[in-house]
């Protein structure tokens, strides 16, 4: 069993507390109408942080769904600015600067899973000694993409780790209506590689499972499916009202298993954490978030930014649309002069 060191556990708790506090602040910003719909992290912290701490950011890739990016601090502080740009709806929110080996938010559920397989396969073709870890939810596991990707990965023996974050819900749909399988880990039998279930509130267990999977992958033994069992402690997103469907007893019980409080208590007991540290970490988290938010808001936005990065070079038509947009009137029809909407 690969056990994180005390120092690592402390760092992990810093990341977990940071993620939670930043997620909560973002929630408040949404309530004030300053950012768009967001999906809070509460309950997922140990899983995301434990997993990425078992990886080597210099070599290993992380492909998130949409709940994880705020907890990927270990991959670089720049990610927080990406998160805030994304949250305010700025086009640059999709850009995570090289060489950070993280892909942006994925909204089309499960589509990132075959990407992970292709990327892992690509690494082996280039003799790049990295692995790819892809996050996805219990709900997303019902998409064909998950299965097609798992099956392909099995055949290729690609160095990929499938991390299913089972938080018991896909919006209002509980896991027992998501699948009749014994567990999400059990689905690995369809692909011919190991599937393991871990307590996703136990950061050490997640760390260990990912470490083990990573070593297998690097040794050429192929993929692993890990199911991290957690509980979504907040609403699905800022647009959701879970009181309509989450049983009160269930959420109360889950709060008793809160992954942040759990690690906090353990580290306090071990003399590695106290209220002062907690306060310091929280303050730093908020400062960083506020800075990222300000930086995001002051990121320039050209009038025609939304037309950039679609094609390497604008097509003839897009160039005319751009000219029309810049001419100030949107493009309401294309004239032979290449200027559109300029009659307005």
């Amino acid at each position: 069993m690969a056990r994180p060191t005390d120092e690592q556990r402390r760092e992990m708790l810093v990341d977990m507390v940071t993620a939670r506090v930043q997620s909560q602040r973002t929630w408040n910003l949404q309530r004030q109408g300053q950012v768009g719909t967001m999906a809070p992290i509460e309950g997922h912290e140990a899983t995301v942080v434990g997993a990425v701490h078992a990886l080597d950011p210099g070599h290993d890739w992380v492909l998130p769904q949409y709940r994880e990016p705020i907890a990927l601090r270990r991959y670089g502080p720049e990610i927080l600015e990406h998160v805030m740009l994304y949250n305010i709806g700025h086009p640059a929110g999709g850009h995570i600067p090289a060489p950070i080996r993280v892909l942006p938010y994925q909204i089309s559920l499960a589509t990132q899973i075959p990407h992970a397989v292709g990327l892992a396969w690509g690494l082996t073709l280039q003799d790049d000694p990295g692995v790819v870890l892809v996050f996805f939810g219990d709900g997303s596991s019902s998409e064909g993409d998950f299965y097609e990707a798992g099956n392909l990965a099995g055949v290729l023996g690609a160095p990929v780790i499938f991390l299913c974050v089972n938080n018991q819900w896909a919006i209002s749909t509980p896991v027992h209506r998501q699948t009749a399988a014994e567990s999400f880990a059990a689905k690995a039998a369809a692909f011919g590689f190991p599937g393991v279930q871990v307590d996703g509130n136990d950061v050490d267990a997640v760390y260990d499972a990912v470490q083990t999977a990573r070593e297998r992958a690097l040794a050429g033994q192929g993929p692993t499916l890990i199911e991290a069992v957690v509980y979504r402690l907040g609403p699905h997103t800022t647009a959701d009202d879970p009181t309509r469907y989450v049983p009160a007893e269930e959420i109360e019980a889950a709060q008793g298993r809160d992954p942040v409080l759990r690690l906090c208590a353990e580290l306090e007991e071990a003399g590695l954490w106290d209220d002062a540290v907690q306060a310091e970490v929280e303050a730093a988290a908020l400062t960083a978030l506020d800075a990222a938010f300000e930086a995001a808001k002051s990121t320039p936005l050209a009038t025609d930014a939304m037309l950039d990065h679609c094609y390497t070079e604008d097509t003839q038509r897009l160039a005319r649309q751009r000219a029309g947009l810049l001419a100030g009137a949107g493009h309401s029809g294309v004239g032979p002069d290449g200027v559109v909407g300029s009659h307005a």
Partner: protein
Amino acid sequence: MTELNMLEAINESLHAEMERDDRVVVLGEDVARTGGVFRATEGLFEKFGERRVVDTPLSEGAIVGASVGLAVAGLVPVAELQFLGFAYQAMHQIAGQVARLRYRTQSRFESAITIRAPFGGGVRTPELHSDSLEGQLANVPGLKIVVPATAADAKGLLASSIRDPDPVMFLEPLRGYRGIRGDVPDGEHLVPLGSARTARPGDDVVVIAWSHQVELACRASDHLAEEGLAVRVLDLRSLVPLDLTAIAEAVDSCGRVVVAEESPQTGGFGGEVVATVVEESFWSLEAPVVRVSGFDVPYPVGMVEDRYIPDEDRIAAAVRRVLDVA
């Protein structure tokens, strides 16, 4: 008559059709216990029970594919896709199976399937939640494409769609759910598929539009009326079947045409409308037809989306443009 928003009108129609025909079943992600993420299916689960209102696993392909099987069994599935952008996940079932069940089986089976999905921008959604795919779907023979613009039509067209023995993509403007309100006839209300509606009269220019663009075209028409222009607005209501007669009549009367849509310009249904105008009424045209549309890039993020969607000013500018021309 009761004043309702589009969401309420849709919900009322679903209740009425489930009441009327017990072969109607509703399925999709989060449609039952929580009544849909927008509450379009609110109350159905409580009223009609878990056999007829079903939360499925998160698989658009299976939702649509199972609907084909339900139709073979003689049921009348009303499937919900949470957002039209995720129809891509089910395109092989929509275009390859739903659209062809009758054709493949030479009418042994009817494909009496309605697939509801919200689409269109304006409410700051994440990626693929606002995309306008109706132009792509219109190229799939066998499907009917229904695109209501008012609360009353949402009710009346949905009822007709569910009763139609052919498959219907029933596309609901996301911005209209709460943003469009209007008087809706009480009780049974049916609007036939394939008949366009004159949303504003006028003989100077006609703006041909559908879904939320109709609302914007009407606003543009109202503004331009203050300048003394009589801008007709033709609400297509369904893209397939397309009301060729109404298009010809409007173009023949006005002679100048603007087509407004949210989709990217290239390959959007607007091109089909222009081609139709040319085929039906070329000799009536007094100016080139102008398309107002989205841009040839993916539907963008929140901070810039208002620049992407044609608004009433862009529609008005296009109207002036077709009038400016000799």
